[in-house]
């Protein structure tokens, strides 16, 4: 049954991707890309990767779509007529695709429990992590504890992306209040509903942040969801009001402090005489130490991701508002 659902979803994905090729209207391309992200998140659920589906739904479909729409508002909506010859790309793509499909024939069959990938590291995580780390969600255990150093690197990458966007675009603050009021003037219903929804969303983000050890979720997802709440506020009430709630400068400090909190846990465990990010020494009981460590570093990840996503949104939105005024 699940295999059939998987097949249908993959078929819909293939059709969506094919449709994207032939569309000249870039707005429609971005809409279909949102659908593509949603569909791939569904495929992730069917393939048992609930944490990944969570992240893809929030990040891929939410943030990417908003950013792409912001870019389209600046760069125009239609793609010009293609002057390239279509033949060479088709040739390159079919040769590469044929090579890859030939390569898959040597891969072990899909879903077989005896595949080599399931024999090596994974059994250790599956069998020992509930005892060693004491968390039911193995993905969180591996992400935050066994591969904590890796995740620190990823957090730094996200942080540096914010630096990159700020270096390229910067955030214009509206100094004078004479700029036309942005936001939806005539969409009164939307404003009121947004006011009702935003607290619920922030509450849900906190739940995802702190329940991520037991169910799907964690710092990455919670950060994005909290950022989505403020993005909703900024979209409905205008950028100036949103910046009055959380200023861009404060976000920069937040982004940095999240990374520092993460690295600080590592340094603290070194001072206790252990290795970098060795949570066993954070408390007298190793399992309790693991709990503290994971809770704190997930918080650091959540703070950084929240601040980075909101900073990127501010940068894009201030570009669109500026060009709109001109």
């Amino acid at each position, binding site marked *: 049954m699940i295999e059939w659902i998987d097949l249908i979803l993959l078929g819909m994905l293939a059709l969506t991707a094919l449709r994207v090729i032939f569309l000249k209207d870039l707005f*429609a391309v971005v809409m279909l890309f949102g659908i593509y992200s949603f569909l791939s998140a569904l495929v992730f659920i069917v393939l048992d990767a609930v944490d990944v589906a969570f992240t893809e739904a929030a990040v891929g479909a939410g943030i990417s779509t908003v950013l792409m729409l912001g870019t389209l508002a600046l760069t125009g909506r239609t793609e010009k007529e293609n002057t390239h010859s279509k033949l060479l790309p088709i040739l390159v793509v079919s040769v590469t695709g044929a090579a890859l499909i030939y390569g898959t024939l040597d891969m072990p069959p899909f879903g077989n429990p005896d595949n080599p990938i399931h024999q090596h590291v994974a059994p250790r995580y599956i069998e020992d992590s509930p005892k060693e780390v004491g968390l039911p969600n193995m993905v969180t255990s591996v992400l935050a504890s066994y591969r904590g150093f890796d995740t620190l690197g990823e957090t730094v990458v996200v942080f540096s992306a914010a630096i990159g966007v700020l270096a390229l675009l910067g955030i214009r603050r509206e100094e004078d209040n004479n700029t036309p009021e942005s936001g939806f003037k005539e*969409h009164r219903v939307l404003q009121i509903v947004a006011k009702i*929804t935003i607290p619920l969303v922030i509450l849900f983000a906190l739940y995802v942040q702190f329940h991520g050890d037991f169910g799907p979720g964690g710092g990455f997802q919670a950060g994005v969801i909290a950022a989505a709440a403020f993005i909703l506020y900024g979209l409905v009430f205008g950028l100036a009001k949103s910046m009055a709630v959380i200023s861009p400068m404060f976000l920069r400090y937040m982004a940095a402090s999240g990374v520092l909190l993460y690295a600080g846990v590592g340094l603290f465990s070194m001072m206790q005489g252990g290795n970098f990010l060795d949570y066993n020494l954070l408390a007298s009981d190793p399992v309790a130490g693991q709990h503290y460590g994971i809770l704190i570093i997930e918080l650091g990840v959540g703070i950084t991701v929240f601040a980075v996503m909101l900073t990127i949104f501010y940068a894009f939105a201030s570009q669109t508002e500026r060009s709109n005024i001109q």
Partner: protein
Amino acid sequence: MNFLDIISSLLLFAGTFFAFSGAVGLFRFPDFFTRVHAASLTDSIAAILMIAGLLLQTSFDLNTAKLIFILVFLLITSPTASHALAKSARHGGLLLFTEKPTKQGGTNQDD
């Protein structure tokens, strides 16, 4: 199959029926405003029926709370989104199928 299961499958069936009829309406109605009407009404009723059907399958725990949260959230946001969409379509110049198209024409081909 006990009594609860039968009720819940009936609710699920009714929910999918309304969802399906909404999707048909998306194709069959003559203009955008009637289509948005079909889509948004069936969206709400399908969400209510199907989530009620699923609620009967839970014991009283966290999942119940989550399902109710989903229902409340959908019931708040989905009609709002439809309303805002219809409103901006009207402002953007789409016409009802009963109205005569003006000089520029009321329909828009965007492919």
